[in-house]
């Protein structure tokens, strides 16, 4: 059972240690440390320019930190420093054990090839070569993300924004990753589409026991999806804790401002 793992597995999956990043004289991210456990969903919240996207880029090995390190426990149980991985190893990690859901689905999908190929491509990258099985698995995943399988041969550029985002999620989850990074996954969608996507994400994350680092400026998204939250401001983590605790009993002035700025439902 998924949640049993969460209780008993006491070794972190991802550890960030004193991560900092400067661009010239600008300190985008300063001294961030935390551990993420299997099945745990961590939300990073804060306004634009708070450093949350820079942090996500470093955590996912796409940006080298100016100081500090990120380590990850690989599927073989060995914990490795991301900086010590070769380019091929890093790419393999990205294709298998990690997922990355971009705010703009066009960044995470190939817009001109079919939906089926978008999902199947990740399977081929990890060595699947039986066309029938790839197509069956792809069509299975389209169903799981509530896309009509009659659309499997259509390219995502013919899809609506919400469908594209669900397809991007299917493409990421098909290899059964243990960790998924999400950058404002509901950002560009209108409200009704957002609710459906959040609900879908919430059940998939629980079912697959996924660890997730999700960057969002929307506290409602953080409340619905995450176990823990880190509030960032000016490149620093200013408050962290259990999501409902930070949102219902915020301690820092900036967090109180964020929470008080939400319109009542």
């Amino acid at each position, binding site marked *: *059972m998924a*949640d*049993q793992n969460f*209780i008993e597995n006491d070794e972190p999956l991802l550890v960030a240690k004193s991560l900092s990043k400067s661009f010239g004289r600008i300190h985008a991210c300063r001294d961030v440390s935390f551990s993420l*456990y299997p099945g*745990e969903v961590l939300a990073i919240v804060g306004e634009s320019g708070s450093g949350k996207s820079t942090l996500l880029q470093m955590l996912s090995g796409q940006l080298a930190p100016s100081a500090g390190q990120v380590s990850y426990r690989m599927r073989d149980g060995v914990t490795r420093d991301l900086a010590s991985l070769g380019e091929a190893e890093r790419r393999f990690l990205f294709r298998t054990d990690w997922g990355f859901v971009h705010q703009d689905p066009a960044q995470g999908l190939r817009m001109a090839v079919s939906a089926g190929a978008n999902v199947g491509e990740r399977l081929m990258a990890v060595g699947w070569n039986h066309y029938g099985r790839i197509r069956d698995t792809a069509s299975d995943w389209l169903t799981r993300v509530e896309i009509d399988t009659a659309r499997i041969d259509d390219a995502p550029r013919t899809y609506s924004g919400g469908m594209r985002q669900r397809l991007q999620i299917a493409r990421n989850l098909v290899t059964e990753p243990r960790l998924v990074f999400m950058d404002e996954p509901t950002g560009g969608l209108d409200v009704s589409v957002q*609710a*459906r996507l*959040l*609900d879908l994400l*919430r059940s998939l994350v629980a079912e697959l026991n996924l660890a997730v680092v999700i960057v969002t400026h929307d506290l409602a998204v953080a409340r619905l999806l995450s*176990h*823990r939250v880190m509030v960032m401001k000016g490149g620093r983590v200013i408050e962290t*804790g*259990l999501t*409902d*605790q930070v949102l*219902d*009993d915020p*301690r*820092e*002035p900036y967090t*109180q*401002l964020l929470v*008080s700025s939400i319109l009542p439902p």
Partner: protein
Amino acid sequence: MTAMIDIADAGKTFTMHLQGGIELPVVRGVTFQVNPGECVVLSGPSGAGKSSILKMIFGNYRCDSGRIGIRHRGKVVDLATAEPRQVLNIRRSTIGYVSQFLRAVPRVATIDVVAEPLIVNGMSRADAQARAGELLHRLNIPERLWQLPPATFSGGEQQRVNIARGFISDLPILLLDEPTASLDAANRAVVVELVAEKKRQGVAMVAIVHDDEIRHLIADRIVDVTSFAAAA
């Protein structure tokens, strides 16, 4: 007897930074214990801090001083200083909370809203749904509503769904925040019965109840929250 909840000298103050840093003391010196099979009712006027104390025991509000000892899997854990992961584990297997209002989850059917706490702890979906159905029956939620999300239900129906969800699991501690507030007499009687059953199973409960008659029926002991008043 070993207490399930052992609160010693706990205190809570809100600092309102947006209002010029006003300090809003809520409670101080909160001290009481709850034993297995016992229902302690918190009493005191509105604003005395009853709900805040429940939220502190659930880890929803942080505790500024003192300790909140919770017996979790045979060991005492201080919730006031526990790590987030530990608080989540305690909520999953030790403390349940029946809030006043259902936090509606969009699109999830009523039967699954109620069954979820059992599924999370490893029960099969079919068994969990069967138990959820029994409870919904007892709380007079007609079967034709079970497949609908509770978001569109009346206030009383939502509260009964919430109660079913809170009472379904076998957690050793239950916190009840006005569980009968918007219920009719028949359903209030069902809640009284459910509380009595939990007591027989050895569950430790802390409740807030405004209705004198219900309080009389479920309370083994009353803790007067005004004695913890912080404003002085």
